């Protein structure tokens, strides 16, 4: 898969909503060769997430590996790790679509109607960060117990304190007989 093809598809669909794009060359030193292979990272406006997903779907058969999160303080960065071009020998390209979600308006449109397999990842980000996915068909906690309101992966002071207190209680109980 050519990086240019993917970039062109995204640029055509998103226009100015495509905020940034860069390629990272990955060094692969095999048995007798040393080659680099590209990974593509793009940053898009939150409002263009669905358009970016639709553009990948229209031009390729994308696979959503997972959505990762990074609490930057005022904003949560969500990384949608797609791959396109799988099924071909060394033809797969990792395309990470990044969006910033301000905590003052902590909402993201769901992509589960476009990529049904995104549900697991969206539910996990919802419970671990508290971000709301508009239109998600099922927003119950997946890995954390029902009703647990602590968001362990957030870095704001209150969430950190609650999570650390929870972990300290566990450590105290685990080591009290030691």
């Amino acid at each position, binding site marked *: 898969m050519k990086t240019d093809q993917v970039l062109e598809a995204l640029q055509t669909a998103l226009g100015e909503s495509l905020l940034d794009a860069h390629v990272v060359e990955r060094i692969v030193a095999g048995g007798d060769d040393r080659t680099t292979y590209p990974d593509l990272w793009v940053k898009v406006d939150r409002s263009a997430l669905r358009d970016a997903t639709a553009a990948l779907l229209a031009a390729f058969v994308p696979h959503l590996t997972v959505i990762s999160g990074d609490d930057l303080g005022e904003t949560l960065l969500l990384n949608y790790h797609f791959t396109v071009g799988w099924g071909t020998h060394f033809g797969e390209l990792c395309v990470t679509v990044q969006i910033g979600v301000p905590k003052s308006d902590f909402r993201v449109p769901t992509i589960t109607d476009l990529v049904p397999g995104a549900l697991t990842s969206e539910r996990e980000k919802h419970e671990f960060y508290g971000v709301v996915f508009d239109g998600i068909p099922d927003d119950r906690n997946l890995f954390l*117990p*029902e009703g647990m309101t602590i968001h362990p*992966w957030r870095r704001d002071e209150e969430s950190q304190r609650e999570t650390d207190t929870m972990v300290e209680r566990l450590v105290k109980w685990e080591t009290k007989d030691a």
Partner: protein
Amino acid sequence: MHNERINLDLGEERTCGLTSYSIPIGPTHPALKEPIRFSFDIEGERIVGVDIQPGFAHRGIEYMGMRRNLIQTLYLSERICGICSISHPLTLVQAVEAAAAIEVPPRAQTIRTIIGEVERIHSHLLWAGVGAHELGFDTLLHLTWNVREKVMDLLEQLTGNRVDYAIPIYGGVRRDIPQEKAHLAYEALEYYNGILQQLIDAFLHDKSVEMRTRNIGVMTYDQAIALCAVGPTARASGVKKDVRQDWPYFSYADMDLHAITPEDFGTDAIGDVYDNIIVRLLEVAQSIKIIEHCLETMPSGELQSIPKVPALLAALKKAEGEGIGRHEAPRGEVFHYVRLEAGVEEPVVWKVKAPTYSNLMPWVPKFLGDEIADIPIIAASIDPCMCCMDRVHLVDSGDHGRRAILQKAELIKLSREKTRRVCG
């Protein structure tokens, strides 16, 4: 909930009001090797709905990793899974090496490939044994697991451990496979080349196995794509997706690999349990060839680009950037994302994605329409690994009208108190 029509297989369809029942299975159940809860909606014997609730083995590993230095995190990552224990460290090292721009010597890449493939042989044989057990063929379980012992011995001989081999390190590997040990690997490969056909015959040419697995637990090609299935689960549905083929890394970058599907067995992909057996057994043969290739073409040279641990830690502490790592583990794609900040020893962000995470949703179409008695083998068919996917077991409780979280040890205390209470 009522089902209006039911075929009683008497040559005619009858209409009756059949009550639908909900059957909870798990989190602990004889058919499950690890904790997970399924809630099945059942009409008669037929599954018409399923809700899957994981999380019972969530240990907060990513939270722990983001509070430890990168070398401690590497060893922690090896404890995510006890079966494919090298899959997560192999993936984490790639992500960190990408973020910190650390190169890896070719010999180390080859050794990583060999250990990864040796692990695939043991994991697929373990799964085949579990599958046979779920079907009630315990003789086949014992045969398969006896055959598996040879590869466990090889892992011990090559790495010093049967599980948690501690081979990868950022920028290389910690142990060599010297020439004098290569013959051990050749011996094991010769053994598997000789016995694999016997296993294929026992599983794939046995009428009983076929009757219990053909057209059971079906996921179509389109469903596998839409639900983002990975690994043998996806390939059994004809999806030719394999990170080793698609995205070059390690010594796979020098090989002409192809994703194994049922077509390699001469049959069309149906996506049922039988096809899952085909893919995994043929992948054992593929792993044997990969290991042979690696042994024959083993490059000379260094094992680590930064051999001293203090120097490595210092280099990692200076690194700034983000990186992804991917590895085709026995169950499918493992994915790690890390972000490093200069001056910080810990990974600022560490996200782990295990194969079972991706294969949770594919379970749904596999269960629907099948019978209660098929639940164990369908559950086993994706080769689930909850400890990989879940990563503090917490239970909700009432606390003076306020919701609170109880942890494991507190629950044990409550349980022991109740035992004393009810026993007087």
